[in-house]
C-alpha cells in the first residue's frame, strides 16, 4: 500500500463508521499521532489518553449529527452532485456486484455513493486510473471537506476534513 492510499483509507475509515477502540489505537501510534497533531492541533488531547465510554459515545453522537440523521455534512455524492449521483452509485455498485471491491464489515451497509467507498476505490488505483476516477466521482470532495470543517465540533472530524483537502 502506498502512503497516499493509506491516508485515503484513514479518511475512509473515519467517515465510514464511528470511532472505535481499534481505529483510535491506530491513530494513537506515536509517530502517527505526532503528525496528526501537526495537521490538526485540537486532536492532541484526544490522542494522548484512553477514551472513556462517554467520550466514545460523544464521538458517536457527533458522527450521527454530521453524517447520519438529518446530517449537517452529508457524506454522499447525492448531496452535492445530485444530477450525476446515480451514475456514481452505479459505478460503485457495479464494482461491489462484480467482486472488484471486498469491503470490510463496517463498510458493507454504506450507500453506494458514500465518500468512504469512493475513497476506498480511489486508494486502490494508480496513475491515470486514479486521476480519471477522482474526476468522475469525487469532484464534490472539496465542497464536502469545506462543509465538514465548518460544521464539525470534534477534533478528529476536523482532522478528516483537512486530510480530505489534500487527498
Amino acid at each position: 500500500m502506498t502512503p497516499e492510499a493509506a491516508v485515503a483509507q484513514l479518511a475512509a475509515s473515519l467517515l465510514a463508521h464511528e470511532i472505535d477502540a481499534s481505529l483510535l489505537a491506530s491513530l494513537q501510534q506515536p509517530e502517527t499521532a505526532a503528525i496528526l497533531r501537526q495537521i490538526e492541533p485540537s486532536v492532541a488531547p484526544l490522542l494522548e489518553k484512553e477514551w472513556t465510554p462517554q467520550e466514545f459515545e460523544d464521538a458517536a453522537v457527533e458522527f450521527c449529527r454530521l453524517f447520519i440523521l438529518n446530517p449537517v455534512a452529508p457524506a454522499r455524492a447525492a448531496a452535492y452532485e445530485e444530477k450525476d449521483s446515480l451514475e456514481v452509485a452505479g459505478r460503485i455498485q457495479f464494482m461491489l456486484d462484480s467482486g472488484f471491491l471486498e469491503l470490510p464489515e463496517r463498510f458493507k451497509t454504506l450507500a453506494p455513493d458514500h465518500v468512504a467507498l469512493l475513497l476506498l476505490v480511489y486508494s486502490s488505483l494508480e496513475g491515470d486510473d486514479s486521476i480519471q476516477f477522482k474526476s468522475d466521482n469525487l469532484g464534490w470532495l472539496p465542497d464536502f471537506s469545506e462543509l465538514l470543517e465548518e460544521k464539525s465540533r470534534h477534533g478528529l472530524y476536523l482532522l478528516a476534513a483537512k486530510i480530505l483537502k489534500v487527498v
Partner: protein
Amino acid sequence: MSDLTRRSILKLGSALIAGGLSPLRVSAQNATSGKTFGVLGRLDYSKAKATPTICFACTNHCGVIGWVQDGVVRKIDGNPLDPNTEGNLCSKAQGMISYTYYPERILYPLRRVGKRGEGKWKRITWDEAYTELADKMRPLRENGTPEEFVFHYGRDKTKGYTKHFTNAFGTPHRLNRRSICSSNRRAPLMSFYGREFEWETQDLANTKYVINWGGNPFEAYQGGLFMAHRLQSARVDHGAKLVTFEVRPSATASKSDEFYTVMPGTDGAVAFAMIHTILKEGLENKEFWNRWANIPLDDVRESVKDYTPEWAEKVSGVPAADIKRIAIEFAKAAPACCTMSNRGSAKHYNGMQADRAIRTLDVLVGNVGKPGGYCLSSLRGWSGKYGQEGLPNLKMPEPKASDPKPWGMGEGFNETAFKKLPKEVQDRVNNFPDKWRKKYFGELATPSEYPLAWHWYQMRVGQLVYPYIKEGRQKVSVYMSFTLGAAFGYPEANAAREVLLDEKLIPFHVAVDIGYGEQTALADMILPEATSLERWDYHSTNNYGLVPYTGLRQPLIAPQGESKSIQVILRELAHKIGGGMEKHFTYKDDESLYKDWYKELPISWEEFKRRGIWQEKDRPKDYELYERPLTEAELAGTNFEAGKLAEGALVEKDGKAVGIIKDGKPVRGFPTPNRVINVYDEIFPEAAKAVGLPLTDGNASPLAVWHEVPEHVDLPEDRFIFSTFKWNVHTQGRSGHWKYAAEIIHTNPVFMHPDTGKALGVTEGDEVEVSVYRPTGFTYRSGEKGVMGSFKNHVRFLKGMHPRVVMCSHHVGHFEHGIVGESKTTETSPAEGKSDKLADKGLKDGVWWARKRGGIGGGVHINDALPINPAPLIGGQNWYDNVCSIEKV
C-alpha cells in the same frame, strides 16, 4: 494547520503503514480496469434490467416498471399490464427513486441520546434495537396488558401483516389515519351498500355524464390516475360531460365542461335539489328503486319537497336553472351516468348527509352497477365473500393469530382493561347495544363517542388519539409509529407533539420510517424502513376496468444501508419477544412468504414476477353483481327451498343473510344486512342516541337531510372559510424529501379571489395573518371562544375561487424534515458569497427557493392552527369547515 502538503501526507501515510494500519482490500485482478468505471452508469436500455413492481408514492399503488442498471434504479415507467393505469404514470412515481437514494435517508437503527426531541442520536445495531424494544414489550404481554403497546400507522399497505403482528401481540391498538382522510365518505357508502363497498368504482370509460362534488381525480384522489385517463377518453372519444362543483378551480374543475363554485359545506344542498328536480320531472328509475332501495320512493319525495333548486341557489350560490338542467341531463343520460364525490363534499359537519344525498342520486336514476354507471367492483381482498366467482383464494399464509378479546362483553372479554377506563366511558359503553359492546376495544381503537367510526370496521378517530392519551383514557407504555406524520399533518399537530414529547404519557416511542421528520424527531428509537423499490407486498385494489386483478410489489434492489422492510422488522421483533409470538412468523424471508401467498395463481411464481400483474382479462366485468344468482355452493346450508321463499325474502345461512329472492329466484343482492340498498338507515339515530347527540342534529337522521354547518350559520361578513387542498406532485407531508417535487411546489400561499383581496385591502404578495376559530356543533372543544390558532403567509389571487373562501395547500412548511423539506441551504451558498461552485447542482446548495438564497422559502406549516374537529358519530375530520378572520400584516 495551513501547511498540510503532499510531504506531510506521505509522512502520515508512511506512519500509518508503519503503525500497522490494516489495509482495506480491493481485488487485485481487476485493479487495472479502473478506467472503464468512468463510462459506467449512464442509463443504457440495452443493458438495464426491467422489473415490474408496484409504486408506493401515494395511495393509488400503480403498476410500474423499474429500470435497474449497475445495481441502481435509474428510471420508473408505467406497466402497461396494470389494468388500472393501462401504462400511465404520474410524476410522483419518480419520487421513489428520489427517496431511495436520498442522501438524508435514514439507513441505520438509531437511539436517542439526549432528551427526547433534543436531536441527539447515535447508531445502534439491529440486535441492540430489537433487544431493547423486546425487553420493553415482552412484560406487557406477559403481565396481561398487551393493550399498552400501541401501533399507529400513516400508510400501511401490507394487507394485514401489521395486524398479524398486533394480533399476535394481543393489542387492539393498530391505529390508523382514516378519519383524517376519508371516513366521512366511506360511512355513507357502507351504509348504502355494505361493509365491502367503502369505495366505489365508476365505469368512467363508458360513461356519458359525471357530476363531481369536490373530487379532484386529475390531481389528487384515491384512484385518480385510474380515473383521469378514462374520464378524458370518455369526454374526447364519446362526448361525455363532466360537471364539477368546487370551491376553487382545481385541475379537475378547470378541465370540466362545467364548473360551479359552491359555498363550502353546501354540496349536499345542490344534490338534494337535483333529487327534487328528478322526482318532479318524473325522470327517476322506478323499477330499479322499487327493486333495490329500502324505502318507498314517496318517502324520499316527501323528504325533498322543500329542497327546490331556488332554495339550493340561495344556500350554495349555484344558479337554480343550472341545477335543474344538470339534474335533467344527468337523469336522461342514465344508466351511463355517475356521481363522484370525495373530501370536498364529505369533510364537513354535514358531509355524511351530503354524501348520502349524492349517493341517493345514483340509486334514483338506476345507474348502480350498470355500464357507464356507478359501479361497485369485486372485493379487493379476494376473500371470496362478494364479487366474481372462481377467483384464486389469496391469503396470507402465516399461522393466523386470533383477534384480541373485546373489552365490553363477550366470552373472555378484557374486563381488566375495561375497568381502567373512566367511569363515564364505562357507563356509555355499558349502555351500548350488544353489537357494539362486542366490538369495543377501548377508546383509542373504538372511541365510544364515535360508534360509527367502528360500526362497519375500525376506521377509528386518529386525530383524537393524542388528546385521549393526555386525558388518561389509555395508558401507553410502548408506542410504535410507522410512516406516520401526525406531528406535522394532524389537526392541532402541536397537541400531538406535546403528547409525543411527554415521557410520562408515552414512556417509549419507536418510529419506523424511511426519512427523518417531525414524528421521528420525537422518538426514542428510529428503525429504518426499506422503500417500495426494496420490498415485497401483496397488492390488490378495485379496478376501474371492472375486471379483478392482483399485482406484486417486488424489490428491484436490496435495501439500502441497514434498512429493512416492515415485514422483516416485525418478524424479527416477534422472534425476539418470543413467548409464542414467533409461532406466527414462520417464514425466513419475504419472497417465500409472498410466493406462498400467491400459490393459487394459475401462473408460475416466476411468470408472475416477470409480469408483475395477474388478471383473467376475459372475465365479465363487475356489472350488476347484485343480480348474480346464488351459486349452488352459496345456497348450501341456507333456508332456501325452490318456490318456498316469498319475493324479497332473505336467503339466510347461520342467521345471516347471504342473498335475496328476486323474481322468485335467489340472487346475491348487496352485501348489506338486508341485501338491498339502505337509502334509509336507522343506524344514524341509534348511534346518536347512544352518544347523546340530539336527534334534531342532521347527523342523526335515518334519511339524508340537509343541515347547515353550525359555525357557518349567519357567518359574519368579516369571517371566511379556510380550506386546504392537495397538489398533484405531493403526497400529504410525506413527499417533503423528494427534491424534484419540492422544486415544483415548495410554498403554500393563501389563495383568494381578487375581489376578496380588494375587500380586505390586500394585494398579491402581501402577508396576511389567518386566525382560525374553534367549531361549534357536537364536536371536540366545541364553541370555545377566541382564536384557536393562526399563521402568517403571503397572498396569491386566483380567479374562480369562491369569494368567501381562502385556501392553502398543506404539504409544505416542514420544520423537522431535512434540507429539502425545511428549504434550508448552506452558508456556502452563492447568496452568502462564499462559493459559486454549487449553484443549483447539489442538494445542499440547490435549494434555490430557500430564503437564504433570496427565494420564497418553504411555505408555512398550517396544521397547528387547524382545530381537531371530528364529525359527529363518524369522527372524520371536518377539514373544510374552519372559520377564520384575515388581517393584513
